[in-house]
């Protein structure tokens, strides 16, 4: 509210009508606003120009390999969790031309470099996705250099991230495949946001996590929240913890994954896994890409393009000696061990944030929480060092 000094307080109440004000303010400040929308009956992040484009009046039903969006007029705004899409594609585009050049005489002439990212305000980021962005920050070298465990900075990612605004929506209705509570990433955003919202009946408890966030609040018709409103917001996210659809016991998990390298469950999951790569595509932290060169017949311009890749494809680990991981068993095991185990060595955190997408969007419903729990069933199996499985042919 104009003229009201909020001082250093960082919590406000924003009415339902105030959300429209927020979208308008963000756009006026030059942000491209991205929010959850409904596309073909799936919650999908898309650019919005007005508040009524935000998915509302729907709730989601999820299970392994199954997703349905249900119309529910009584639903509040953020009464769903995550769709297959995550903010990953906004900072790490699925297809990005890195450079284009041509030869003139004896030298290369630059035609294009990678495009400039838009200035994004992402509204309705879930706490698990917020955590996933922090995981990818280390992968793409964004933020504090002293933090360690970070890779070389990726230009596009860093630009996109630096100029973006993250507005989190805390979860009060977790889904059946959610397990953020186990991974310590949700259902309430703790850090890494500019603004966070907890939805109550008639509006939102709004919190600022950065100066950029506070600057937005200064333009909004907010009021002080009552103590009972703050308590209700707290209660709703506390209750969400108790209603998590799934759990993952992370205690000693990294060591377990190392010990159980020949557990029989890897053979079982290999029979179900199609190596279709859906899990890695929807995973908000999976970061693999492939770079290919191509040329234009007419102009002679050569371009270099980066695309999302997956450790589940046969050609991913292809070398002159063939594929390093030639079976579904090897590829699934590699992915899961990286996600929950060796990610710690590489980046100093878990690669899993508990969003549950890999469970929901696996066409055959392979469940990472069940796979992890299954490893605790047996004593470690020791096979002869030279033994490995060759899985070929058709079995149905």
């Amino acid at each position: 509210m104009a003229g009201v000094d909020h001082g250093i307080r960082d919590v406000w109440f924003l009415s339902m009508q105030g959300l429209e004000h927020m979208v308008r303010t963000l756009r006026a400040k030059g942000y491209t606003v991205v929010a959850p929308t409904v596309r073909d009956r799936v919650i999908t992040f898309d650019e919005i120009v007005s508040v009524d484009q935000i998915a509302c009046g729907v709730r989601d039903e999820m299970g392994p390999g199954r997703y349905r969006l249900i119309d529910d007029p009584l639903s509040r705004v953020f009464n769903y969790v995550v769709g297959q899409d995550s903010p990953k594609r906004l900072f790490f585009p699925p297809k990005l031309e890195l450079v284009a050049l041509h030869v003139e005489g004896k030298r290369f002439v630059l035609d294009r470099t990678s495009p400039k990212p838009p200035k994004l305000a992402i509204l309705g980021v879930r706490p698990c996705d917020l955590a996933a962005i922090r995981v990818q920050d280390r992968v793409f070298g964004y933020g504090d250099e002293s933090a360690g465990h970070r890779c070389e900075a990726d230009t596009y990612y860093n630009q996109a991230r630096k100029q973006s605004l993250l507005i989190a929506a805390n979860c009060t209705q977790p889904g059946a495949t959610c397990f953020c509570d186990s991974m310590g990433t949700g259902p309430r955003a703790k850090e890494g946001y500019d603004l966070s919202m907890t939805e109550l009946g008639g509006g939102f408890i709004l919190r600022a996590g950065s100066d950029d966030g506070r600057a937005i609040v200064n333009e909004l018709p907010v009021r002080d929240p009552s103590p009972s409103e703050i308590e209700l917001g707290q209660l709703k996210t506390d209750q969400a913890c108790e209603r998590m659809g799934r759990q993952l016991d992370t205690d000693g998990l990294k060591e377990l994954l190392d010990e159980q390298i020949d557990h029989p469950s890897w053979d079982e999951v290999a029979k179900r896994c199609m190596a279709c790569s859906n899990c890695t595509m929807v995973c908000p932290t999976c970061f693999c890409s492939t770079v290919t060169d191509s040329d234009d017949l007419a102009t002679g311009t050569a371009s270099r393009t980066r695309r999302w890749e997956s450790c589940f494809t046969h050609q991913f680990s292809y070398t002159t000696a063939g594929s390093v991981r030639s079976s579904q068993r090897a590829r699934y095991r590699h992915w899961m061990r990286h996600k929950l185990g060796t990610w710690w060595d590489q980046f100093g955190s878990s690669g899993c944030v508990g969003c549950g997408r890999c469970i929901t969007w696996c066409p055959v419903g392979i469940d990472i929480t069940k796979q992890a729990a299954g490893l605790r069933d047996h004593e470690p199996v020791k096979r002869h060092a030279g033994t490995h499985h060759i899985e070929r042919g058709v079995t149905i």
Partner: protein
Amino acid sequence: MSGITIPVQTDKPKLAVYKFSSCDGCQLTLLNLEDHLLDIAGAVEISFFLEARRRVLPPPYDIGLIEGSVSTPEEEKRVHQVRRDCKYLIAIGACATSGGIQSLRNWANVKEYADLVYPSPEYLKTLETSTPVAAHVFIDFELRGCPINGGQLLEVISALLAGRKPNIPSYSVCMECKRRGLPCVLVSKGEPCLGPITQAGCGALCPGCSRACYGCFGPMDQPNIGALGGKLTGELGKTNRDMKRMLRSFNGYLDPFKPASDEYERLEQQEK
């Protein structure tokens, strides 16, 4: 144009386009590359392409694109001449790479089919089977699809001319689908989508229209057909007969769609 063979002196690589048993759709994909057609004509000498021009230059040719399956005694002979005439031979489309939809005859009695379709079947000269080009001669590269993707064709031609490896993926359609951010029709609608076992290349054309993939690019590299079959016959209520028919469409005679469809046929017969 007179139709007379005129010798032309040219330094450009010579391109030939052949048709065998097919619908012409893959050759048309080349002609439909309207924005790039002049570029192609500028980069290569179109020496033999009966659907596009009458003028025929004599072999040898540098690049041969071969469309269609081998399904007649005449084609069985001609395919060897084609191989001899071309330095690089590329099979284009489902017919040339798998035997095509006409390979359904491979599971049936051709004479019975012919008697049903033609008033005078005695004039028909056809083989018992319809087979891919690679079953007869050595092939340098294969482009899948019914029809092929224009972008992939352009990529292969550009790569050959530049002397680089073509970027043609062997992974699933799901990869292209997810990169495009398309909602999964299998998970969110329960549609019987073959995307998880089908090779990419089409750019997720059907899921882009909210439709299930029907596998026209054939099997991906190491598909797990049984796992998808388990989902389709279980949760989605498809029958073994449905599975057999879904696999035996454009690429039914191609491994491992063929043995998998045979297995579903066996299961279907067991039920009876």
